[in-house]
């Protein structure tokens, strides 16, 4: 599995790590049941703090993408249905809309007009 993160990026490192997992699950490179590297080892290879990796894993667990089992590490729990780039773009869109004071209904209306 390939992990690409940019320490100089403004995006949080834990979000970048989570994006790598989402993309690989969406592309099928990571399948359900597959085990992710232990947080300590991944943190060492990426030169980030172990807690940053753990935060990314927890974020993915909260999204239902990963599951933690005692003694078995983090495993892929489900395959996402939406392609990762679309999810990422949607997140960015929601963030921009919030910054400009656009509410949920306005945003949905805008998307409906465009699609």
């Amino acid at each position, binding site marked *: 599995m390939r*992990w690409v993160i940019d*320490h100089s990026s403004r995006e949080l490192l834990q979000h970048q790590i989570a994006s790598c997992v989402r993309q690989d699950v969406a592309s099928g490179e990571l399948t359900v049941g597959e*085990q992710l590297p232990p947080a300590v080892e991944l*943190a*060492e290879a990426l030169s980030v703090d172990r807690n940053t990796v753990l935060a990314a894993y927890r974020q993915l667990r909260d999204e239902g993408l990963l599951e933690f089992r005692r003694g078995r590490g983090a495993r892929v729990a489900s395959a996402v249905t939406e392609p990762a780039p679309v999810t990422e773009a949607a997140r960015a869109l929601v963030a921009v809309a919030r910054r400009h004071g656009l509410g949920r209904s306005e945003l949905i209306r805008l998307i409906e007009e465009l699609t």
Partner: protein
Amino acid sequence: MASAFAGRGRYSIYTGRVTNWPMVVLSVVPMAPLLVMGGSSNENWRGFVVPLLVAAAVGLVNALTGSSVRTAAGPNGISVRFGPLGWPRCTYGLEQVERAEVIDLHPWYVAFGFWWTPRRTYCTVRSGPTLQLTLRTGRTVTVTVPDARAAVMAIHEAQSA
């Protein structure tokens, strides 16, 4: 966190894990005749218990050190860890690696588990496309990874950065 390239920005690394449980089972199966002989040759319970303990120890050592191999390769070098405990562990800095390439490991030449000779180190659990590092000392390190080409690409990218 120690890092040779801290603050440089972009980190592109490869991680992979390969597990070979059938090989662990196969390594314990040859112990069965020993258990049978131990049980039949001596009516004393020790005749059975001692071979059983030996077989259990062999199986445990195989499961812990030869069942799986985890690899991480990138700007911080190449680390190879065995089994669920991550030991034995080998780490090679990028400056130690002269060449990284993909070789096709024939089933006859697979040294299952962790093996060390004066000129070679094997961290292999299966045949097929395999990562091979040639160190500047002349030693070759052969490592089983799920996608050997991706591992080589990550190493080349890190070396050229």
